């Protein structure tokens, strides 16, 4: 092979490799990216059964129920709609009533959201960004009392 042919074959090989990787990447993005919703967004959303989403909002006051063992049920609200969530595990240290949370999981056929992870805000100035922005856009945002 001449130098030129060699170089061309290397470039072709590299491109084929990159193409395969790109295809895989975009397939994975389509399949595995999880969308973020607030409870009120869900009426317009067309969800596949079993599709993983992230559901954010405030923990509604008075809805936290501790069940058997480590199972906890609570409602996530954006002050327009509520969604009942169940979660088995240890809640984050900052999980409280009327605080912003993001839960990730899937809907059960009966409409209860089964979360396998729950994130709460990290410190007193921080609320999950998606939650804060969505609440602001819905006009139910209240500036935190600290600061």
């Amino acid at each position, binding site marked *: 092979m001449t130098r030129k042919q060699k170089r061309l074959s290397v470039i072709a090989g590299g491109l084929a*490799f990159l193409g395969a990787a790109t295809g895989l990447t975009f397939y994975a993005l389509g399949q595995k*990216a999880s969308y973020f919703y607030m409870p009120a967004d869900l009426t317009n959303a067309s969800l596949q059964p079993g599709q993983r989403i992230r559901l954010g909002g405030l923990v509604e006051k008075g809805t936290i129920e501790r069940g058997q063992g480590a199972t906890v049920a609570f409602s996530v609200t954006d002050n327009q709609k509520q969604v009942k969530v169940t979660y088995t595990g*240890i809640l984050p240290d900052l999980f409280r009533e009327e605080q912003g949370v993001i839960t990730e999981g899937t809907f059960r056929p009966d409409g209860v959201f089964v979360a396998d992870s729950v994130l709460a805000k990290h410190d007193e100035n921080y609320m999950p*960004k998606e939650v804060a922005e969505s609440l602001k856009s819905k006009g139910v945002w209240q500036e935190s009392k600290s600061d």
Partner: protein
Amino acid sequence: MVETGHFALVLAFALSLVQTLVPMFGARMNNQKMMAVGGPVAVTGFALTALSFAALAIAYATSDFSVANVWDNSHSLQPLIYKITGTWGNHEGSMLLWVLILTFFGALVAAFGSNLPATLRANVLAVQGAIGATFLLFILATSNPFARLNPAPIEGRDLNPILQDLGLAIHPPLLYLGYVGFSICFSFSVAALIEGRIDASWARWVRPWTLVAWMFLTGGIAMGSYWAYYELGWGGFWFWDPVENASFMPWLAGTALLHSAIVMEKRSALKIWTLLLAILTFSLSLLGTFLVRSGVLTSVHAFATDPTRGVFILCILTLFIGGSLALFAFRASRLTAGGLFHPISREGALVLNNLFLTTATATVLIGTLYPLAVEAVSADKISVGAPFFNLTFGPLMVPLLVVVPFGPLLAWKRGDIFAVAQRLMAAFAAALLAVLVTALFIDGASVFAALGVGLGFWLICGALTDIAVKSGFGTVAPSIMLRRFAGLPRSVFGTALAHLGLGLTTLGIVGTLCFGTEKILSMHAGETVQLSGHTLRFEGLYPAQGPNYSEDRGRFALLGADGSTTAVITSSKRSYPVRQMTTTESGIKTIGFSQLYLSLGDEGTDGSVVVRLWWKPLVTLIWGGALVMMAGAAMSLMDRRLRVGAPSRRRKSTGAVPSASLP
């Protein structure tokens, strides 16, 4: 003292401008005096930045709450070590640390670069000075750590409790030494482009810097991973969080650079590619700094969400990445192409390594930036997490890991793949044995798990084979073998150690992910629980008082076969009154290479406590492997050939067979 610090920082900024302009014009006009300015200015700039950093650290150590930054991130009751580490536990201080390390590397080039060609040295220092100038301006204009408060508050607002940990003393400095260390490779590349000239001595200079940066970055990432593992109480060692990815991308690109620089140094091939990789690696470091510091992402690392800062860093990013790539586009064609090689050769193997690593970097980059892009163009908010990376990054890494043992055994220029495969038969047999043992004797082992264990053993045995073959194991008499072994270049040991560490990390990841078990339950005092053959008894909650927090300690007794207590594991819920924050301290017991990990949840109304327990087999190998990789890098650095200033003596003193001449 505080004002001295601020003043020193302003001076450092002024000097960095001098460092940028004077040597660069000196190099253009071939003016020796102007070029010589770079060195002393770089050293002085470092000294001034260090003074400034020391001033801030002293303000922290002495709890000077008249400094706004100290007030916001410290408390008089904190232990001294956390007061000091708090210096960089905030946006302003961590940027100051960033610049301190940047100027430190600049000073190192000035101090050890006396044998570099004068124009190259001047240009390198100029580029390094330019990076320093922009970041110093960034600190002075948007993130002044020395701003005063009047009147001075009596008490501070405490450091974020999650950061009150020894991890803060180790993780950021190591990570920054890595991140910023790549700036040297960047400066060398840009300098080479400015000069339009690149040769093997360039690679001899760049390789040790890459090794140093890579070594520290490996340590920084591993330390960050272990810190998150024990501090957050979630039991995971890697979350594919954008902030983690931000440090992982330069690591992947840096690993590629490390390997392509070998080809360039030994065979003077892949010159242009190596140069581009050096630029890309530091660009990814800058991108990481932007992602973490601009507040576009929410995480524990995003201290600040001041939009002007984000815009400023974005400008720096555009200037350096855009500028260097444009320079590359214009100048790269001037550089001469290097030697030829057959696809089956050491060079070919290293090209394959580069192909995989850069593609893997690209997938991580896409996964990290895609959510930001989607949010920018539509109202959708998406998150890309572990499932995405498992599907893209995983398939790219597995074939790379499979071919790793072949690389070092192939000869330069034209290799014999069958001969290499023959030499690797023993390693292959060992890996196969590991697969069979795992599949047959470990309950619940899936095919994937067994293959994963085999892959780990394959890497480890492959690394050992490399050493064995190069010492002449089985082909020469034992005494000659020992002599050859002792005479092998350090870089051969470095390679083998790094690949062995990779195998250990692989084994740790496979062990934890495939054979780990976990349980979540609520326990009353006195109850026992079984997990993977370990029996734990919950002894109860005991209140305790720390210097700036109060805590409830959950005591767990690990019971032996006869029911006696063999160890006590404590996990606690801490509450920090100043920030009104609660944190969970996980309880960890290391047994062999594995760990028993537990973390406390909420207390129920009936006095029970939710407990989450994990059995994590071989988990410590994940970080242990990283330490071995660092040792490999350190070993390579000790190679005489790489030691700048002592390049020639080796040829006479050792009778070793150079690795390149081996069949």
